[in-house]
């Protein structure tokens, strides 16, 4: 009985020490989710891929933005492919759904506007929300300026997107006026 009483404080101490050590080790392995430090896009993508698979999935949008900023520092047409491959990888890894990957790619690197996605007819769906649709398109055009012009040097693509925006604005104005007149 006496021996048991003597061991008890030691066991308590050992237990506490073990818990502190476990906590300390946990703290050291927690991902920091830092932004990539390199200015090279290839290396930055590799670093981001490693970080994303290491518990930083929640920071995907920030990393995508970081990569775009890095690519802006070295703009070239091949960057389109780099981003496409990165997004396909993210989709394959289950970090993004296929639809999200498409949304991320097309919003920045395609002439077409993702803001115009919709399955209902223009009279019933687009016209009542015309101002919002045009506002969303305008914001998307800013992203296209970044992706097409500043990252990929695709001047023609960006000018076509800009032209498409104005054409949609004109055609929607006419179509919605015609729809309203038919009510």
């Amino acid at each position, binding site marked *: 009985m006496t021996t048991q009483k003597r061991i008890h404080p030691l066991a308590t101490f050992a237990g506490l020490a073990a818990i502190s050590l476990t906590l300390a080790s946990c703290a050291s392995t927690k991902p920091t989710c830092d932004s990539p430090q390199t200015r090279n896009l290839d290396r930055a993508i590799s670093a981001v891929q490693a970080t994303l698979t290491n518990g930083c999935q929640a920071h995907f949008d920030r990393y995508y933005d970081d990569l775009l900023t890095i690519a802006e520092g070295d703009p070239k047409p091949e960057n389109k492919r780099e981003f496409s491959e990165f997004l396909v990888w993210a989709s394959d890894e289950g970090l993004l759904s296929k639809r999200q990957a498409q949304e991320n*790619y097309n919003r920045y690197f395609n002439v077409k506007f993702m803001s115009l996605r919709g399955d209902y007819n223009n009279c019933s769906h687009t016209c009542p929300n015309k101002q919002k649709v045009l506002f969303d398109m305008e914001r998307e055009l800013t992203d296209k300026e970044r992706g097409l012009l500043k990252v990929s040097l695709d001047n023609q693509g960006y000018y076509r997107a800009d032209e498409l925006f104005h054409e949609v604005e004109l055609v929607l104005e006419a179509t919605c006026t015609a729809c309203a007149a038919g009510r």
Partner: protein
Amino acid sequence: MRQNDTKPRTAARHFPLLDTAVYWLLVVTVVATAFLVGRVALANTPTIRLFPTTVVEDLRHTGEVARDMETGLQEVIGRLDQQQQLYQESKCDGAENDSGCQRLARQIGATYLDMLTIMDERLPDMEHTVNNTRISLEKNLRSELGRKMSPWTLQETLVGKAKTTTSSKSSPTLRGRSGMRLSERFKQYHQLVATSGSQSDQSLAVLASDIYLDMHETSVLIERTRQEIARATLMEQLNQSFGIITPEMMEVVGGVKSILFGDEEARALVAGPPPGTIEQAYRSPLEQ
């Protein structure tokens, strides 16, 4: 007769196989040609129907009515310009009580009334044809682009199925053409629409929208102008008794001139951005 009949029969008896071969060759050629022509025609035919023949005809008629109005007004406006010049050269500004100046002012007022009368006579016809075109286009736009298309399909129509990026040539940019004669504007519209068979769907959608919005504005303006003419005529009839030239009168004449005969100052063209130089061969599997 008998001799004539025997010749072909003899030939047929001698070369029956050749005849059959030629016959089938002809049939195959005709069918193949018809098929090819059909394919080509199908490829060139726009799939959206925005410009039926009635619209083309309405546009042509509107152009003619506008030309008639211009011709009628040209002479009166020329006369007004001369009278105004004479008024200024006679130093009538500030000498309104002078009897000679009063007579000149009355003459100017009478010519101004002539102008208003011509406009009043021609505008109903103009209004009628503009409204016809507007209503036809309105119906087609509502049906083809409004009800049959979603925003995505509309975008795909505008981008074009071939995904060509050289659309600067094919897509007309027509809005804000105030520096052009009214009849010339309708003539251009008519030409564009009459040759629309060779244009792609994306150009047609933009063209139809552009013409429709223009007609819409023109329609509203004609209606307002007709109301204003009645008021201005009454005012001028009153002014005639005093021989006064009002600033409003000169303003109206200037406005009519710029609408009908074009406004040089409004033709400021802004250069477009330089075309891109880089070939874009890469297409992502994510692209839609």
